[in-house]
């Protein structure tokens, strides 16, 4: 039942939007500070990193695959860029993003040529990258002092709007365009909707899959750089919460785990919902550990409500 309701086009947008309205109204009435401009900017600062990771996750999920290594990629790219800041200054962005893209490409290659389910490839990639990150930083946080580098996240180019939000919006617009107006983007949808059919129609499925995991790694890399700039340091395990958050945001936004339906344009709704949830829970002083529990529940419920069971011959 539930999945039929949420997959209807008209209702698909209405449900997340009304959910946002309910959250805003309830948090706003409990704590008026929630609706202050300062808190809105705060919300943007808190959700921008998730926005960027979730866009990458959306492409992977659109194909019907999943990327569980985003957390470790964020960690390693955050640490790598923090280490390069003293030498390269702002140029350290490149180092962080490159390592993210590289890790993503490896994911894609092992996934495609090893013919191993993506959740297993990326699950095993987690500790590998995590271990590398720990070796690079020797287990302790790498503090960033370069003001120019910190400004890429916390500076303000436009009025009071935080730079990190500009990054998120740019990435969002660009990849929404890619998803709907480029051949690559449309192929991602067709692979998710029917891999065999798209292969027979001449889509180079392997290439698209590898590119998509590269995109996810690249965006997680960028997210890691921005996150380290926002936190003023690169630390071990800093990316861990983003694994579940990025899946939850994608699915809550309306991209079903079965793939083929939804799109990055909708992920912003999921990101806003997840952002408001944690921001609101913070304002209400909900214990961080309880928040972890709530996010787990939200993820399962969101997946349950959107999954297209007709497309899974049997559920493993």
């Amino acid at each position, binding site marked *: 039942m539930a999945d039929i309701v949420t997959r209807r086009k008209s209702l698909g947008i209405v449900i997340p939007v009304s959910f946002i309205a309910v959250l805003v109204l309830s948090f706003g009435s409990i704590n008026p500070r929630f609706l202050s401009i300062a808190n809105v900017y705060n919300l943007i600062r808190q959700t921008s990193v998730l926005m960027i990771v979730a866009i990458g996750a959306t492409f992977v999920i659109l194909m019907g695959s999943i990327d569980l290594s985003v957390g470790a990629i964020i960690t390693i790219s955050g640490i790598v860029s923090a280490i390069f800041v003293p030498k390269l200054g702002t140029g350290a962005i490149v180092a962080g993003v490159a390592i993210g893209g590289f890790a993503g490409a490896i994911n894609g290659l092992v996934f495609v040529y090893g013919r191993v389910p993506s959740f297993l*490839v990326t699950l095993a990639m987690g500790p*590998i990258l995590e271990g590398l990150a720990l070796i690079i930083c020797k287990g302790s946080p790498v503090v960033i002092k370069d003001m120019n580098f910190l400004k890429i996240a916390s500076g303000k180019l436009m009025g009071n709007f935080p730079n990190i939000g500009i990054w998120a919006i740019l990435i969002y617009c660009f990849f929404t365009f890619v998803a709907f107006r480029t051949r690559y983007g449309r192929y991602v949808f067709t692979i998710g909707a029917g891999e065999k059919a798209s292969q027979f129609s001449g889509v180079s499925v392997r290439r698209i899959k590898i590119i998509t995991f590269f995109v996810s790694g690249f965006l997680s890399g960028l997210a890691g750089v921005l996150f380290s700039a926002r936190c003023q340091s690169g630390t071990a395990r800093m990316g861990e919460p983003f694994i579940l958050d990025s899946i939850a945001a994608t699915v809550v936004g309306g991209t079903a785990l079965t793939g083929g339906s939804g799109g990055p344009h909708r992920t912003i709704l999921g990101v806003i919902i997840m952002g408001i949830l944690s921001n609101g829970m913070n304002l209400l002083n909900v214990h961080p550990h309880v928040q972890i529990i709530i996010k787990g529940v939200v993820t399962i419920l969101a997946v349950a409500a959107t999954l297209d069971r007709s497309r899974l011959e049997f559920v493993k």
Partner: protein
Amino acid sequence: MASNLLNRIATFIRRRKIVDVLPYVMLLVLVVAFYLVKPIFLSNDNILVLLAQGMVLLLVGTASTFPILMGSIDLSVAANTTLTGIVAALFIPNIGVYAAVPAILVGLGFGFINGMVSVKFKLPSFIITLGTMSIMDGTGLLLSGGSPIWFQNEAFTWISKGTIFGSLQNIVVWSVMAYIIFSFLGSYTKFGRYLVAIGGGEKIAKLSGINVSKYRIIAFTFTGLLCGIAGVLQISRVESASPHFGAKLLMDAIAAVVIGGTPVSGGVGGIHRTFIGVLVITVLSNGLDVSLVHPYFQLIIKGVVVLSAVVFTLDRSKLALVK
């Protein structure tokens, strides 16, 4: 083609003769290698330590074998073991040795929930258990306040460290007993055969009249039960419960199952096989520790071991599309 070659290697390795021998060869190679690096590796003390260390993995590995035999997976085993340990530690001051009971019930309950959600919501097991993993981690952190819980209770410590048989620690006795019981269940009962049938081909299993939903719930519940027992034995052994205990356990468990000879594609292998896989992984962990390999490197090695074990055993013919 690379994937063709891998597939051939995997098909080759999955052949009975190879699968049966390979883990023993790996074990032998590891033991000899570590002995050459550090002769202390084969000292009596270290072998006893190694045995005790491996028992928790034996339980969690056995637990993980049920869903993997069905072609599913349970990513929450480590979180479950951690949580049940914490629950037991919290109950010890009040009810002493009986704290094991609520802990095991919590483990069993979460396993049952995994199974129920899997059957009722028809969700892929990896995503459910990813969600419940987060729920259990959060609950464990919440209950423990984020730091280890220490306790002193002789009766409870006896569960793992006492000795019923000679100088063999009880943890070994309980774990091996549980392993034997569940291996028997897996090899000689309807339940065990049905799990293999479901993993071999769910549709055929269903058409032959197997109540797939029922057996799926039972399998996940058994997984939870064994994780609960593992949690209790673990904290009894180290006399404290840490919310971060399970970090390495998940990878180790999957690796042990796969190396033992149950590929993640399901339908072949068996619970009894996991024992040798557990030995290989335990010798690897202990040997790396003894050889003073840095824990960060060990993380990488474990990731590579899991990935290669999966890559070289997966039955690709059973996956129409690799998602």
